[in-house]
């Protein structure tokens, strides 16, 4: 399942203007961070997730544009 989640995060990074894709990537990132906190090792590691959530220049999940278009479900995930 982890590779699929990583794929969703990477898709959000490549399509940051697509609100639905970003919300999907956000949900995947939250799940992956839970796995990282539980010290679960996954194929490919967590670097792609860290790059997506910690890059404050790209602001994939916290950009003003995404915040203004995010659904209520998205707001709960941010």
């Amino acid at each position, binding site marked *: 399942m982890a590779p699929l989640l990583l794929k969703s995060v990477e898709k959000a990074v490549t399509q940051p203007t697509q609100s639905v894709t970003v919300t999907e990537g956000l949900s995947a990132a939250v799940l992956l961070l839970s796995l990282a*906190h539980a010290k679960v090792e996954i194929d490919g590691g967590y670097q792609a997730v860290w790059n997506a959530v910690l890059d404050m220049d790209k602001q994939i999940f916290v950009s003003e544009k995404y915040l203004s278009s995010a659904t209520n479900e998205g707001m*709960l995930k941010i």
Partner: protein
Amino acid sequence: MQLGEKLLVNFPEKVSANATPLYKAILHCVTVTCPETRKKNLAVLRRMVNGLGGPSISKVLFAELLKLLLKPPAPTKNDKDSNEESTELLPHAVVECIVTLCSSSGLTPEHLRALAIDSLLPTHHPSVVKLSPNLWVKILKFHNIKSKDLIGQTGSELRKIFIDNYQALPVGKFVY
């Protein structure tokens, strides 16, 4: 709010000092117009400020909240566009946010003093005062802080806030 909670509570060492967009996003989520979503996000925020790194999280969020409150409102285009959803912070959402940020328990006297000082300006913003005139005093009472003692202990910080860092803002800029 789940991403914010995971990052700030579980991985605080990974979050850089330049994480302003993350804090702004958290404030956006806890002041959102939908009451149900806001309530759920405020519950997460309460958990965050009651955690181990709670005092430092509330400190940064108060600083960001103050910046948002002092930001001049976006100019309105014309009457036709007035039906568009407002981007301004809802005063009652701001009050709820402040109350939640001050809801931590078991804080050290030092952290309590910091919380009282950090909440001083946001609780006295005109839009907040109009809705909840004695919010700061209520916060002090909730934490058993005597205002006389606080002023005596934090004189230099108060001087810095009210004299050194004073910014004159036209009253008309505030949204009521």
